[in-house]
């Protein structure tokens, strides 16, 4: 993933717009199961967004801990699209290559590349791509017991990747990229 100079990076305008009407009530933080592990609570993150403090925002791990449970969105008294904005922050961070922990962005990328190739998830290849991208032997080891359990049950099959083959969804992905560039 390419990295741009941080001074060039801007907070996408949709993100600030989504949060403009936030009244800092904290219903989001109170509803969020992940907030216990966040460096900034959701409420604090939205304040940073309102203040345009992009350094603090993108250095924060907060939005990577969003599991898309939509409880904050359901309860926000202002009706703001909070979960969608967490996703928009993930997209902005991925596009800019601005993240401290590689796990989430590399996993999403491995997932989408596998789907591009086969049209459907192939767990073994997806996790292989993910581990390869991370280049850290500890992560695959931590998943070995799970992988073995799933294989014993016949739920995932060892899978030999087919290199060089035309991807099932290549045309669709290419067109999406082209359309996004034109936006």
């Amino acid at each position, binding site marked *: 993933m390419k990295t741009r100079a941080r001074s060039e990076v801007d907070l996408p305008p949709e993100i600030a717009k989504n949060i403009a009407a936030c009244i800092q009530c904290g219903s989001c933080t109170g509803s969020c199961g992940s907030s216990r592990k966040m460096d900034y609570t959701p409420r604090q993150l939205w304040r940073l967004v309102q203040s345009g403090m992009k350094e603090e925002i993108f250095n924060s791990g907060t939005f990577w801990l969003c599991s898309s449970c939509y409880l904050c969105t359901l309860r926000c008294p202002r009706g703001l699209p909070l979960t969608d904005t967490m996703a928009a922050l993930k997209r902005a961070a991925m596009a800019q290559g601005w993240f401290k922990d590689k796990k989430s962005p590399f996993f999403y990328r491995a997932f989408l590349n596998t789907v591009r190739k086969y049209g459907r998830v192939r767990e073994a290849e997806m996790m292989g791509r993910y581990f390869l991208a991370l280049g850290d032997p500890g992560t695959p080891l931590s998943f070995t017991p799970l992988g073995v359990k799933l294989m014993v049950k*016949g739920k995932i099959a060892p899978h030999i990747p087919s290199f060089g083959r035309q991807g099932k969804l290549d045309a669709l992905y290419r067109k999406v990229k082209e359309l996004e560039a034109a936006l």
Partner: protein
Amino acid sequence: MKYLYYPGCSLESTAKEYDISVRALMGALGSELVELDDWTCCGASAADASSYLLSLVLPARNLALAARSAQDADFLVPCSACYLNLLRADDQMNRSARTANAVNQALGEEGLSYAGGIRIRHLLDVLANDTGPERIAAAVKRALSGLSVAPYYGCQVFRPYRIFDDPERPRSMDALIRATGADVFDWQMGSKCCGAGLMTTKKELALELVADILEAAKGADCIATVCPMCQMNLEISQKKICRMRGRDLAISVLYLPQLIGFALGLPESGLRLDLNMALTESFQARLLQVQPAVN
């Protein structure tokens, strides 16, 4: 009744027993499932974290295929994440002509387009509202009397789209569970998050979320789920969670159609309880004690 069926990727692998029990149960209840030809991944939560347009195009491709199939049938989806993504693509295209146009330009690469009109239904919605608890109760052959079942709904089946139940206090599973003869375990964690994909990327946090759910389920005989991600998160790390919290939190977790299917007397080939990762020995012994009703 006929349904156009979208299993989704998990039901081909980690959630095979969900697919098998959905097909067997719906068949036993007299419904016909026609699997959508050439279906592809809905994008899960990965697409939305990467590209907004791709997060709509991936599910919309399946909606377009459903429309092209010209089956006059509702679109049945057992996975809550697929369900949300399909609803979201339909909703966003409906709200904005510009979005719909961009999605359709991409779909055009495969000669597809989507103009709305597909009725997307979650399995739970279909069981609660099309089939209904009365028909299930009438078909019960092995009543699960005395069994206490904790209904676990998870998040994305009711949030952000509240189609068929109250997302704060869901109860659509209650009557279905009672129809099997079992009791509904009264708890507050039925729609709290299991951590979903965080189990892969932020394991430490996801284990805490699951541990809270398992602690609250203490006292129930089993948990019933309606989503492959919830099911796997709740069942896969129980040993580790017991060590983490220093108490026995092991509990059986099964898919709702497995539970109902068992009560209906479906054979093991239609339930595949052998594929579940967390069925305690005492729970299995309990199931063996349930005798078929004489009638």
